[in-house]
């Protein structure tokens, strides 16, 4: 029982009652928000797991190809081969609102593409492993961007859920019981005051009657 430090007056009582009402409404809303966010989060996180497993497997094989290419080629030759990419890739970002959390929506855009080949080098003088590695990386890239979007969303949702849960708990276990206790305390105190003034009046009345009667 935690009673707030307030004066037991009627004004205080009615303002506390108002606060209790707001707190209860807020609690209900936040609880709904938390539940819905949790549902979304579980969806997102499942997707995230799935994507991550896929991406990691693909990326690993692509990088293994790349290591092979690096082993079979001269380092300088490899670096010159990929030094000037034929295309430039950018990311377009849109905001999406998921339960009042602003999450990014990413879209890969090719800013320019010089020629038909996606390889920035001639086929002569580079090993076939490099071609394979780059083709594989190219395939992973789209998924990688998707993964970035999903993972960021999961991160932000997790953060927000934690905050909301704290608020819900604070309301449920601290604010609302405190308010209820205080309201009860004030009601009791006011009733007590009323009873004591009533008995005082009765006493005075009987004293007056006694004096006048004599």
């Amino acid at each position, binding site marked *: 029982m935690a009673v707030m430090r307030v004066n037991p007056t009627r004004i205080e009582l009615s303002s506390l009652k108002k606060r209790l009402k707001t707190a209860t409404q807020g609690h209900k809303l936040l609880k709904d928000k938390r539940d819905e966010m949790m549902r979304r989060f579980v969806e997102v*996180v499942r997707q995230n797991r799935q994507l991550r497993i896929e991406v990691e497997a693909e990326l690993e094989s692509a*990088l293994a190809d790349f290591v092979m290419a690096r082993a079979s080629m001269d380092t300088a030759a490899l670096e010159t081969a990929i030094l000037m990419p034929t295309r430039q*890739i950018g990311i377009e970002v849109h905001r999406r609102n998921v339960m009042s959390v602003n999450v990014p929506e990413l879209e890969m855009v090719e800013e320019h593409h010089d020629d038909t080949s996606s390889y920035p080098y001639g086929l002569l003088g580079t090993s076939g492993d490099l071609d394979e590695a*780059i083709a594989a*990386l190219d395939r992973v*890239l789209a998924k990688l961007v998707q*993964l970035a979007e999903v*993972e960021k969303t999961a*991160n932000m949702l997790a953060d927000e859920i*934690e905050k909301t849960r704290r608020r819900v708990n604070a309301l449920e276990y601290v604010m609302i019981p405190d308010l209820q206790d205080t309201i009860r305390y004030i009601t009791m105190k006011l009733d007590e005051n009323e009873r004591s003034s009533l008995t005082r009046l009765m006493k005075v009345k009987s004293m007056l009657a006694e004096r006048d009667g004599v």
Partner: protein
Amino acid sequence: MGFKALGLTVEYAYDAEKAGFAIHRLAREGTAVIFVTEALAEQIPETLERYKSSMLPAIIPIPGNEGSRGFAMANLSQNVEKAVGVNIFVNEEGE
């Protein structure tokens, strides 16, 4: 890394300090997505933490040459634990 051939901008960083600086700089320049190898990501938890709750940039750990270390997966289940309170994917991870 081979990503350069695909038109991504590649930054090289071999130690935690340089990686931290590079990420901060990229973030200031308005980069949307940064891929970091897991080996490096493990060394710069503070930097990752800082950008975790902001919308941009999304910093995504990816396996490097030596394969996946499970760092990103650990991150994922950490997220789940944070949000739900318990890891609800425990049984699936045992596969």
